[in-house]
């Protein structure tokens, strides 16, 4: 492998040098000629469950679609675990060629220049253009004009609800709540069904959904320049107090993992659209899906990840990686991806395809996430280097408030002080 890398590097250098010789006087940039040498590249990805199976299937498809490039797909664990492993591999100087990461975790890599800019690949490749991707999703990957990632798995949180419980509680299963106040009333009615039935599950541990709550209550999570967090602003406190009230009144549970949501004992929950297929396959009740409720405003965070190419790979590897990225972002792949997982397609071609219309007609639950696009906003902290640490402080404040019945304003104040102290070191 190392030998091959070195060899490819030499081939590249020789090629580009001869290219420059011939191109004397003309443009400095040598004309790109596709290599024919077989090559293997490593690709780390980070989502389990159904998306894992779909990713593997797509990689196999890519490997079968041509004979030159072999992609070795490696599951790195959760977003967080994969990020940790990638950092360690950067430190050890032993990175893969392509990585799939949550956008929110990439700041350090982007800012420190570990990723290859994709601008030149888009410029030289006539088969694709930036316009082939949903603009809002593509732009999330841009930093100082350079595009660093190709949107692969895009999502926003949606509301899952149990229609059986709605019926039992005398609620119209086709009329899910559209505001948080309505949701509260609904939860009360569902809770009345029994001591082990709950109206709502406040999803615990992910952080990006609770950040969304802050928005819906009219607040910001972090200042635009990332200099300080805004957790003591009234909306952030109100959002947490609202959830704490539901929890204390026994209307809601606050639970991570998937067992509560799949057990059928909870009326409504908010999770990523990415888990839609997983949920459909795992539950025995009549599952409904709806847009997230609003309060002061309707706004949902865009989550998910992109594909990134490591800048220290050889040019031959990077060229091969580009072919792979193109395949993963193609209309066909993105259509397959959206249909098998519940994720949003990032390809305009997939979005406008007849297949997508057919999917929505067959199961309208897959459409909800697209209905939310108009008010979907990128997570606040995409370019925040100590993001991991700051978000875990936020999550702990929520845990401490809800589970230990703390004072929301006070815990958030303490958490904010801690977070701002960390942020100050990165100014």
């Amino acid at each position, binding site marked *: 492998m190392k030998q091959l890398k070195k060899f490819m590097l030499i081939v590249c250098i020789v090629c580009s040098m001869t290219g420059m010789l011939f191109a004397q006087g003309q443009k400095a940039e040598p004309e790109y000629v596709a290599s024919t040498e077989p090559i293997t590249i490593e690709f780390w990805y980070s989502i389990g469950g159904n998306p894992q199976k779909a990713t593997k299937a797509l990689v196999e498809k890519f490997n079968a679609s041509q004979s030159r490039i072999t992609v070795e797909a490696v599951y790195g664990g959760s977003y967080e675990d994969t990020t940790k492993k990638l950092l360690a591999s950067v*430190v050890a100087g032993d990175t893969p060629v392509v990585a799939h990461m949550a956008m929110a975790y990439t700041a350090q890599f982007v800012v420190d220049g570990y990723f290859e800019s994709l601008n030149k690949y888009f410029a030289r490749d006539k088969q694709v253009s930036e316009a082939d991707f949903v603009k809002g999703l593509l732009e999330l990957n841009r930093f100082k004009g350079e595009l660093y990632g190709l949107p692969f798995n895009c999502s926003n949180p949606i509301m899952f609800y149990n229609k059986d419980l709605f019926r039992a509680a005398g609620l119209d299963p086709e009329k899910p709540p559209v505001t948080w106040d309505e949701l509260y009333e609904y939860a009360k009615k569902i809770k009345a069904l029994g001591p082990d039935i709950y109206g709502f599950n406040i999803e*615990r541990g992910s952080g990006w959904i609770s950040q969304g709550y802050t928005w819906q209550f009219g607040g910001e999570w972090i200042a635009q320049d990332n200099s300080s967090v805004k957790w003591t602003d009234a909306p952030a406190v109100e959002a947490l107090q609202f959830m704490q009230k539901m929890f204390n009144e026994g209307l809601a549970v606050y*639970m991570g993992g998937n*067992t509560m949501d799949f*057990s059928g004992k909870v009326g409504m929950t908010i999770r990523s659209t990415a888990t839609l297929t997983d949920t459909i396959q795992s539950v025995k009740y009549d599952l409904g899906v709806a847009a997230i409720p609003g309060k002061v405003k309707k706004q949902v965070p865009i989550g998910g990840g992109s594909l990134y190419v490591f800048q220290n790979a050889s040019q031959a590897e990077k060229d091969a990686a580009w072919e792979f990225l193109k395949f993963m972002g193609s209309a066909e792949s993105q259509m397959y991806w959206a249909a098998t997982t519940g994720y949003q397609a990032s390809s305009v071609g997939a979005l406008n395809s007849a297949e997508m219309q057919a999917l929505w007609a067959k199961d309208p639950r897959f459409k909800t996430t697209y209905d939310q696009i108009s008010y979907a906003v990128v997570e606040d902290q995409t370019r925040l280097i*100590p993001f*991991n*640490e700051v978000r875990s402080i936020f999550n702990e404040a929520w*845990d*401490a408030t809800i589970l230990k019945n703390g004072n929301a304003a006070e815990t958030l104040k303490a958490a904010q002080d801690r977070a701002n102290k960390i942020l100050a070191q990165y100014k």
Partner: protein
Amino acid sequence: MNFRDLSPKRKKKIHDHLVVGVCLAPSALVVMVFTYMAFIYCIYLSFNNWNMLSRIRWIGLQNYVTAFTSPEFYNSLKVTFQYVLVAVPSCVLIGLMIGMLLNWITFAKGFFRLMLFLPVITSMVVAAVIWKWLFDPNVGFINHILFSLGFQPSHWTRWTQDPNGGALAAVLVVGIWKRVGYNGVLFLAGLKSISVSYYEAATIDGANAWQKFRLITLPLLSPTTFIVTMLQFFSAFKVIESVMVMTKGGPAKSTEVLVLYLYNNAFSFLKMGYASAVSVVLFAVIMFFTLIQMRLEKRYVHYQ
């Protein structure tokens, strides 16, 4: 001077030293590099600021100051002590009970010994995954049993999701479950080494079962008890894997033990210097308690 010219006695001495050197070299190298050198390096790193990507920067005692003024650090110490305080006595007592039970029986002794030993040989990762499932608050077996016994759902029946003791209890159960079989076998060995003649003499003197236990078994078993307690203490102080798999230290840091705190700082936040300082504290704490236990050994342990 040549080797040949040396006296036979000296020759033999040199030869002997050579043999010793060759024999010791591989083991000594491994022990020196990966334990002592590593530890000295750890002390050095603890005075520096380093995230592995930047250059090492000497900051003196700053890391220690940060640690001893950080509520998170004290929290991890507190959680570790809570864990140790419950795990050590319960593992030792249950282990003693198992050892005594096994010592009493003759039929199918091997079978029982084997079955009680199975958790010991299972990996902690597998154990934690299974127990996480059993402790699941919604569909787990443990809550099923508790609820059918008439327990009401409460904050602690949320187990791994409860910061008020539930999560720590769940982690403790796994730790105890995994360890008691080992302690039981150690106690069994200790019990076997007690000469039957003591009991026979006691029976003749008319001692009852409790008197025999208190006056013969306990004192004569004290060396075993001491060793088991020490080992249990070490292993409880270093707990991390079960916590990592079951709770990741949460909720609200209620299960973030010292070693996990160290791990997170080093490998999640890349604060290598700070994590090294925490390592040094971990070592100091373990050392301190070891010395106390050794003092106690002199006082209370009776050797036959």
